[in-house]
């Protein structure tokens, strides 16, 4: 087996992922955090909600890299990689969206007004719409893939579309939401990455390991799916 030395079969990074996640769950809940009025303890969601989005971006990046690799070599293996990483990215994006919805309903929503009123103002937030567009573009990627029967055509079309979907991320979640006024924090500079004045040192100590841990977990699950796909591929073409 040629892939025997592949990173997918190594275990050191899987152990790293587990250790980092255990650290995230303990330190994330126990360490001191800044006391801010509307957030209170929910500020700890930074280690979970924000990490989902970071993991999503990293997984989508890996996906587009593999799409380009497919277009260069026309090796079906890279197409399988690209697809599975995109799916995992979508899963993390959805988790980010759901956790964000829960978080927002306890921090942004005004408890004194009817739910519908606060919902309409929250749902209009450009960051939420941008993220929704980005995810929808990736849903379309899956639909496009599964609607083409021919293997090579499917791989080629979806690889090209993958590049398009990735470039859509730039305006949808990195540019437009920062231009428009928003309830969501992180309008100036690089949210959560600004070392000087964004998040306190204490929180950074958990946040960065958390991002790595969640991403590695996503990569781990993706490699499992890739390995199953490769097995199927092998069975179909003996």
């Amino acid at each position, binding site marked *: *087996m040629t892939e025997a030395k592949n990173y997918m*079969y*190594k*275990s050191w990074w*899987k*152990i790293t992922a*587990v*250790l980092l*996640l*255990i650290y995230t*769950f*303990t330190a994330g*809940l*126990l360490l001191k955090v800044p006391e801010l009025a509307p957030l209170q303890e929910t500020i700890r969601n930074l280690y979970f909600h924000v990490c989902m989005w970071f993991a999503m971006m990293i997984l989508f990046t890996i996906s587009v890299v593999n799409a380009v690799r497919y277009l260069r070599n026309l090796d079906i293996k890279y197409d399988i990689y690209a697809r599975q990483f995109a799916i995992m990215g979508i899963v993390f994006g959805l988790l980010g969206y759901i956790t964000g919805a829960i978080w927002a309903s306890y921090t942004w929503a005004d408890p004194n007004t009817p739910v519908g009123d606060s919902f309409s103002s929250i749902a209009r937030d450009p960051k939420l719409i941008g993220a929704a567009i980005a995810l929808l573009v990736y849903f379309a990627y899956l639909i496009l893939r599964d609607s083409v029967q021919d293997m090579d055509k499917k791989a080629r079309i979806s690889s090209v579309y993958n590049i398009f979907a990735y470039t859509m991320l730039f305006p949808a979640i990195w540019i437009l939401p920062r231009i428009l006024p928003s309830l969501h924090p992180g309008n100036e500079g690089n949210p959560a990455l600004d070392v000087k004045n964004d998040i306190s040192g204490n929180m950074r100590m958990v946040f960065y390991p958390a991002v790595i841990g969640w991403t590695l977990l996503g990569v*781990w*699950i993706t490699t*499992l799916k890739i*390995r*199953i796909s490769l*097995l199927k591929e*092998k*069975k179909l073409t003996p």
Partner: protein
Amino acid sequence: MIKLLKSCMLLILMLNISFTVSAQEKTVEMADMMRSNGRIYVVVAVMLTILAGLILYIVRLDRKITKLEKEI
């Protein structure tokens, strides 16, 4: 790889167990750890349990797929 993974999981499990055991020992003489600090440790324990369950599930899946790869 599997052996390494297995031993590591075991190590983590042991650490967890020892952590809870030491926490219980403290209760005899000192303040109850699981009941202090607004009982946040209970939340930590619950979340770690869920995490452990999910991780164990993934590890088992990983091993099953490795087995399949060797068979085919």
